[in-house]
């Protein structure tokens, strides 16, 4: 009975690992933003975490949700900027002196759809700038935003998503979708089964 249980664990481990090996890379791409007064810091997170947010895929644009005005962000970074987002490996783009309002920040060329990514792939990240302090000056090396003539790629798309996840957004659905999750759990089950088998055999020998 106990031997059968151990064998079952091994079988499940092999099944899990074979399923996991087929999984595609499923870490999604998304934006990380931080609003500090009238400064908005935008970072690229996920698979694209190491890229420069100001220049990647055409750079970043900002749309005023109320007025529809669209501007292109300057190629401006600040390594000293304290941001809640993880900017250790990529350069975040810093948008200074943003007037109060609601804005959408997104890439000119949006992220490629990663269907397996939990939470889907977004076109933009929406932020609120609430600081009404009129006194604001750009940093010396910041040329400021420039007008953007085209339409943001998210126009015509109602939900702000390049695509939704093909898996359920719930925790157990995403657990299955995570890259290599089944491979990792399968290997650990095998490892545990080996240990458990020997422990049980040892115990049976002592009783015998």
């Amino acid at each position: 009975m106990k031997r059968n249980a151990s064998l079952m664990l091994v079988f499940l481990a092999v099944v899990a690992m074979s399923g996991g090996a087929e999984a595609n890379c499923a870490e999604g791409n998304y934006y990380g933003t931080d609003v500090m007064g009238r400064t908005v810091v935008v970072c690229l997170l996920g698979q694209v975490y190491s890229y420069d947010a100001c220049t990647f895929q055409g750079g970043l644009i900002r749309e005023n949700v109320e007025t529809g005005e669209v501007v292109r962000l300057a190629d401006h970074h600040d390594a000293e900027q304290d941001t809640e987002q993880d900017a250790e490996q990529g350069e975040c783009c810093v948008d200074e002196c943003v007037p109060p309002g609601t804005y959408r920040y997104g890439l000119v060329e949006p992220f490629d759809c990663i269907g397996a990514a939990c939470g889907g792939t977004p076109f933009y990240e929406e932020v609120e700038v609430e600081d009404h302090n009129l006194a604001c000056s750009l940093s010396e090396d910041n040329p400021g935003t420039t007008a953007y003539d085209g339409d943001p790629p998210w126009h015509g798309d109602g939900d702000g998503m390049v695509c939704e996840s093909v898996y359920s957004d719930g925790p157990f659905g995403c657990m299955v979708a995570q890259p290599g999750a089944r491979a990792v759990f399968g290997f650990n089950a095998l490892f545990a089964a080996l240990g458990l088998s020997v422990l049980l055999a040892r115990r049976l020998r002592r009783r015998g």
Partner: protein
Amino acid sequence: MGEHYLLALATTLAIEVPVVAAAFFRTWWRMAIACAAATTCTHLAMHFVVRPLAGSHLVFIVVGEVMATVVEGVVYALVSRPRDLPRAFLASALANSLSFGFGLL
């Protein structure tokens, strides 16, 4: 070192140390220290060695997690008194599965 990284490490330790200590309950203090040390080393290696070298997120996750389970299992086997390889395998696999699973939530 980022705040997010330290939080991830602390969470991993909070999950794995009690599991390993419970698996070796007779020498729980010794194994708790061994777990904390080994897990910290594998966590650092995973994020600062494996991740930059991995060609994809899939490779990073699978190689890193398997490495952690195997290395930690070996450490527990060597540190345990009396030496208990199967218990070490079981403890490492269970602890790593729980922390990996928590990280997916």
